[in-house]
């Protein structure tokens, strides 16, 4: 969800310490939604990291005498068609979904930022070539490209990460390029270049730090898009394969039982919704905090 460079040409710099730094933290924590988002994200991350210890049951353990039970004291979120504890599966699903979210965002951002920097800094044909390629990827409804890629690569965790990561590259490239273009012309950057500083050093020392803001914002939003994309791929049978639980495949699996055992889909759907909300609020909060002109 890239936006054109619109903020009057000033770089988005992020200061984390000092007078401007503490203003940043204040702005960040001002909105209750952002705070809620941070808490939510931390909770999900904790669940994912400590899944083995927190989950009451192993995620693949079947209890055939307790199939499709409504939530009760033993199975806090109920059981699925095999009697597997939904709570445990959702907790382990947090791990998988987070892995998908973070890994694909890492791929997307690192490749995207590199390409965007290259395009912005070099200009000319390099710029055109890279940006048109990005356009090609963006011209697809992402689902269709995802289906096509999954048809070629097959389902499974690694491929899902790869596919979603690939789909995220263009946005990072565009945003980075926009920022680089803005910063490129600033006085101190021009000065550095005039002084003979190598391009690579200029980029790393002066240009990139000033683009961090929008990139970080986009990254946090991208994590949530990735989680949603995993759910969509699982809906089509192209995502993480059972019995490994991911929120997407629990939700998709639960579709068959939505009339008799709706809790299967409900809790995984809620997990997806809450996590996406959390990362969205973090992203919004970051954007508000970074851009000082949002002060009224």
């Amino acid at each position: 969800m890239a936006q054109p460079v619109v903020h009057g040409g000033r770089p988005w710099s992020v200061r984390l310490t000092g007078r401007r730094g503490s203003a940043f933290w204040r702005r960040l924590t001002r909105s209750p939604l952002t705070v809620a988002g941070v808490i939510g994200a931390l909770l999900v991350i904790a669940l994912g990291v400590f899944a083995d210890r927190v989950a009451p049951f192993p995620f693949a353990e079947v209890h055939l005498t307790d199939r499709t039970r409504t939530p009760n004291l033993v199975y806090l979120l109920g059981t699925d068609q095999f009697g597997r504890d939904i709570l445990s599966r959702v907790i382990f699903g947090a791990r998988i979904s987070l892995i998908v979210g973070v890994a694909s965002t890492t791929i997307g951002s690192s490749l995207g930022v590199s390409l965007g920097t290259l395009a912005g800094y070099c200009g000319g044909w390099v710029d055109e070539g890279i940006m048109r390629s990005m356009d090609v990827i963006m011209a697809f409804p992402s689902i269709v490209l995802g289906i096509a890629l999954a048809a070629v690569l097959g389902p499974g965790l690694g491929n899902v990460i790869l596919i979603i990561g690939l789909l995220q590259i263009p946005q990072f490239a565009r945003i980075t390029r926009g920022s680089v273009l803005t910063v490129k012309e600033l006085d101190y950057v021009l000065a550095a270049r005039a002084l003979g500083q190598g391009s690579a050093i200029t980029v790393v020392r002066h240009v990139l730090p000033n683009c961090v803001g929008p990139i970080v914002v986009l990254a946090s939003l991208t994590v949530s898009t990735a989680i949603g994309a995993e759910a969509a791929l699982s809906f089509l049978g192209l995502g993480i394969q059972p019995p490994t639980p991911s929120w997407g495949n629990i939700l998709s699996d639960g579709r068959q039982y939505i009339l008799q055992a709706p809790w299967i889909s409900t809790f995984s759907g809620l997990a997806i919704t809450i996590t996406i909300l959390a990362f969205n609020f973090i992203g919004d909060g970051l954007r508000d905090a970074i851009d000082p002109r949002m002060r009224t």
Partner: protein
Amino acid sequence: MNRPRRVPWLHGGAVALVCLLVACGPAAPPAPTAAPPKPTTAAAAAPTSAPAAAPTSAPAAAAKPAATVAPAKPPAPTAAPAAAAAGEPIRGGSITVVHSNNPRSLNPRMDGGIDGNFIMTHVRERFLGINEKGDIVPVLATEMPQRPDPLTYIFKLRQGVQFHDGSPFTAEDAQYSFNIFLDEKTAFSGNYRKFIRNTEVVDPFTFRINMKSPWPDFLSDMANNSGLGILPKGALEKYGDDYGVKVVQGTGPFMFREWIKDDRLVLVRNPNYWQTGLPYLDQIIFKPIPEESVQVINLRTGAADVLLDVPFKEAKALESEPGIRVLTHGAGVLEELMYNTLVPPFNDTKVRQAVALAINRQEIADTVFLGYAEVPTDLLPSWHWGHDPSSKAPEYNPEKARQLLTEAGYGPSKPLKFEIRCTNQPMFVDQAILIQAQLAKLGIEVTVTPMDKTLFFAPMFREAGSDPKSWQAGLEDYGFTTATFSFVWEQYSADSTINTANYNMPGGFQNPEAAKVIEQAAIETDETKAKAIFKQEYAMLEADMPLTRLSFLQNVQAVRSRVKNISALVGDNYPFMYAWVDKN
């Protein structure tokens, strides 16, 4: 209708042996008939005892007199309750049938897919068909074919039959159709090309088919595969690219009206159908709805009248819903775990037997199929005449399994590990996961790999370019016709293309005795002798265990109570032939 079948033709998702529901009352056959012919195997086909003029219903005395040109609109019976015995069938009305997938194609040059073939069974007919009980009966032929020698079939064709465009049906049309099915540019059935040499028009109503080599399954194949329906001579040329999209020709009880892909396929009544008085419905609309729960919701809200393939989990809930009837019948679907005897670990009989002993089949039937399945106790399902009612359930004995595994060299220090492949459908994945859990109790490590259909089947069917040694165990279902032949031969004969276990095939597990018995069982026509051979075959198969038969499924359909006289699916017969709707 979603069950992929491993038989060479893709069609008729659920084959079932059916009794018409008591609530519907017996259908009204247009002509009195004798007892229906028994399912015969083609190789020894003799004309059946009673030449039946039409697919027959239950042999009970017909409830209606023979002449049944129903009056245009009889006064509707006052609010006939759903469960009451038969009212008079009323002509007219429209029903909406909900199913899962778009037909792939309606063109005779292509395989129509399961849904396509099922729908088209109402439009296209062959010389033979299947009646509601699963027997092969003559349809466009007047009787079962004459067999002057094992390589020849002579069919006497029915006179006075019209195609939907009005032209009369003769042997010329049959030859035109068979040419399409045999020509290398237009055929889709590999088997027709493999076995049939040529066809002859002997006279306008006698048609002769000459085979290259014996094909025991020929008549059963023809009876079950609506894709091989007869079309009028010159139809493809006359209609060109419109054929299969705007026009489909046949002799069946319903005519093709329109097909809007992903939206609906509409059939209308054939007023000149050769079984006078049938069918009753004016119109059938087939709607493809991909999402299972939305299908059920459409049925419950009344937007649809018939749901062809009710998910088992919905069945119980629907049973108690007012206004909806749930029909269950033994289906022609067998769930099984296939072992590849070409490679370890399943080249060792002890391992196969051990795994079979360690699988709790009843638990699978109850868990995955919610009781809508029966554990196979015999070679043949319980509704088949060849079934031995005294046969017992297969053994479930984890201790014995453990012992066998130790004998085979596996144990806690060297656990048995193997991979179960299956296609990407919840039904198969669920079974595989359950087996994984069951076997884990013995320390057996199973990995479950769901995969794409084409990748799954290629090595099992030994297709060119695939590696037949690349798989160890596969979980699929086997869709069978009700002909005895398919039960006793198709999976186990070394000559069959779907002998996935490579049983008695080069490199695979060998048992020449069993191979002989299998071939015998396929051609024995004397019932008593056949039963004895079946018993023998079953004992040998249980000992050799090339595959573990998990469950015979039931087919579940749901209909709204306004729809009467639905006969459930048997191969590709006409479930809607006798159906009618209450005007209320």
